[in-house]
C-alpha cells in the first residue's frame, strides 16, 4: 500500500494546488491597486462604496425574507407529510427537486411572462410586488435544500409522540408547530437557512432579470467596469460562503443523533 499512499498524496497535492492557486491569485490581485506596493485599497474602495452598502443590505434583507418564507412553507408541510400523509411524500419530494431540474433563468422567465404588470396577478407592476416575487423566486431555488434539511431534522425526532403529547396537553396545531416541532428541528432549519443565505446573497440571474438592486447585479456591474475591486469582492464573497458553511458545520455538532432509529 506504500505506493497507494504516495499517489493519494499526489492527487491531494494537485487538487489543493488547483483550489488554492485561484484564491491566492485573487487575494494578490485584490491588493495590487496601489502601484508598486500591496495595499488594502481595493477593499477600502469597495466597503466605502454606497452602492455596495445599499445592494448588500438589500440582498441580506431579501435572504432573511426568503428564509422566513422557506420555513413557513417547508416546516408545516414536511411535518404534516411525516405525521398524516406519508403517501404524498414522493410527490412532495419530486416537487422539491424540480428547482434543480428547471434552471433559475427559466423559472424567472416564466414569472416575467405570467406576473407582468398587465396580468391578473401583477407582481411586477409595483416595487413591493417585484421584491416579493424575488423573495418567492429565491424560496423556490432554496426549496430542495430547505426541504431536505428539515426532513432530515424531523427524522431524528418522534413526531407522532410529540404531537400526541402536545394534543393531550390541549395544544392546537399552531402551538404544536411553533412551540413543539420547530424548536426540535431548529438546528436543521438553521442549517437550511445558512445554506439559503449562501445561495441567495450573490444570486445574479433572478435579481438581474427582475431589475432588483441586489448584490449579484452589483457584482456583475463592478466586474464589467473596474479592475481590482472585483477581486476584493470575490474574496469577500468567498468569506461569506465560508462563514455560512462553517456555521452549518458547527450547528451539526449540536444536532441530535437519530433518536428513534436503530442505527
Amino acid at each position, binding site marked *: 500500500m506504500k505506493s497507494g499512499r504516495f499517489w493519494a498524496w499526489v492527487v491531494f497535492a494537485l487538487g489543493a494546488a488547483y*483550489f488554492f492557486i*485561484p484564491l491566492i491569485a485573487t487575494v494578490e490581485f485584490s491588493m495590487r491597486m496601489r502601484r508598486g506596493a500591496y495595499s488594502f485599497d481595493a477593499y477600502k474602495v469597495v466597503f466605502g462604496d454606497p452602492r455596495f452598502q445599499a445592494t448588500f443590505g438589500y440582498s441580506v434583507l431579501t435572504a432573511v425574507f426568503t428564509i422566513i418564507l422557506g420555513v413557513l412553507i417547508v416546516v408545516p408541510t414536511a411535518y404534516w407529510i411525516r405525521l*398524516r400523509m406519508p403517501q404524498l411524500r414522493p410527490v412532495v419530494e419530486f416537487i422539491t427537486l424540480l428547482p*434543480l431540474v428547471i434552471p433559475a433563468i427559466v423559472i424567472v422567465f416564466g414569472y416575467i411572462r405570467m406576473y407582468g404588470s398587465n396580468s391578473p396577478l401583477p407582481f411586477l407592476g409595483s416595487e413591493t410586488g417585484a421584491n416579493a416575487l424575488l423573495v418567492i423566486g429565491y424560496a423556490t431555488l432554496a426549496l430542495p435544500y430547505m426541504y431536505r434539511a428539515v426532513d432530515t431534522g424531523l427524522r431524528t425526532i418522534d413526531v407522532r409522540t410529540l404531537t400526541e403529547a402536545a394534543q393531550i396537553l390541549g395544544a392546537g396545531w399552531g402551538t404544536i408547530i411553533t412551540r413543539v416541532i420547530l424548536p426540535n428541528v431548529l438546528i436543521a432549519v438553521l442549517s437550511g437557512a445558512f445554506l439559503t443565505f*449562501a445561495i441567495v446573497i450573490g444570486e445574479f440571474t433572478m435579481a438581474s432579470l427582475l431589475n432588483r438592486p441586489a448584490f449579484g447585479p452589483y457584482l456583475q456591474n463592478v466586474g464589467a467596469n473596474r479592475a481590482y475591486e472585483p477581486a476584493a469582492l470575490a474574496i469577500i464573497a468567498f468569506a461569506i460562503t465560508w462563514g455560512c458553511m462553517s456555521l452549518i458545520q458547527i450547528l451539526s455538532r449540536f444536532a441530535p443523533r437519530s433518536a428513534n432509529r436503530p442505527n
Partner: protein
Amino acid sequence: MTDISLSDHAVAGKTAPPADARSMRLPTQWLGVAPFFIFAIMFLILPTLYLMLGAFRNDAGEFTFENIAALAQPSIVAAYWISIKVSLASSLIGAFAGLAIAIAIVRGGLPEWIRSATLTFSGVASNFAGVPLAFAFLATLGRLGLATVLLNVLVGFNIYAHGFNILSFWGLTLTYVYFQIPLMVVIIVPAIDGLKKEWGEAAATLGATQAQFWRMVVIPVIWPSFLGTVILLFANAFGAIATAYALTGSSLNIVPILLYAQIRGDVLHNAHLGYAIAFGMIVITGLANVFYIWFRTRSERWLK
C-alpha cells in the same frame, strides 16, 4: 419506518383524537399541505408550463411547431452545442478529478485531518459559484492574472500566445470545474464510505489481488452513483449563467446567455422563440435528471 409504536394504532383508525372526527378528516388533512402545493403550482409549475405551452404557440395563440423548428437556426444550434460541450467537459473532468480526490482522502491512508479539511473546503467551494468565481479566475488566468504572469516570468511560457483564453470554451470549462469537483467530492465520499471493509477482506480471503478487488467490487458498486453524479453536474453546469456572463460577457454564446439576452431585449425578434429555447433547456436538464434518479435508485441498494 422502523418506529412501530403504539401511536400507530391511533392513526390507523378507531382511537383517533376527538379533534379530528372522521367527517372532518379529509379537508383538514389536505389543508396542512395546501400552502405548499399552492406555492409550488403558482411559482414553479405554472410558470414553467406557461413557457412550455408558449413554445408551441404562435402570436395568434394557435398551436404550432414553428418555434421548435426555428431552434434549428445556426446561431441557436451553436449555442446549444457549446453549452452541451462545456457542461459535458466540466462535468466529466470534475467527476473524475473529484472521484480521485475522494478515493485519495477516504482510502489513501492520508491523515484524518486532511479528510475533514477537504470535506469542509468542498462544502464551501461547491457553493462558491456565480459572479465572484468568475472574478477569481480572471485574477488567476486573465491576461494580468497571477498564474498567467508567473508562468510567463518564471517559465517563459505565455499561455495567451499559445491559444489559451479565459473567455473561451476551455477557460469557461476550467472555471466551472472549480465548483464541479467539490460537488463530486461531497456527493461521492459517502458512496466510497459505503464500501464495507468486510468486502475487501472477503475478496482478499478468496485470493483476489488489489486490482481485482477494485475492478470487480469497488467499481461496480460505485459506478451508478458516479454516473448519477456526472449527470447532476451536467445539469448544474447547463443551467448556470452568472459565472459565464461575468467571465465572458456575451462573447461566448452559451444557451443561458442567449436566453438572458432574449428576455432582456428580444434579440431574436420573436417572443415565442424565447419560449422554445427555455423549453429546450428544460428538456435537456429534465432528461439528465431522469437518468440521475434512475442511477440513484440503483446505487441506493448498496449504500444502506
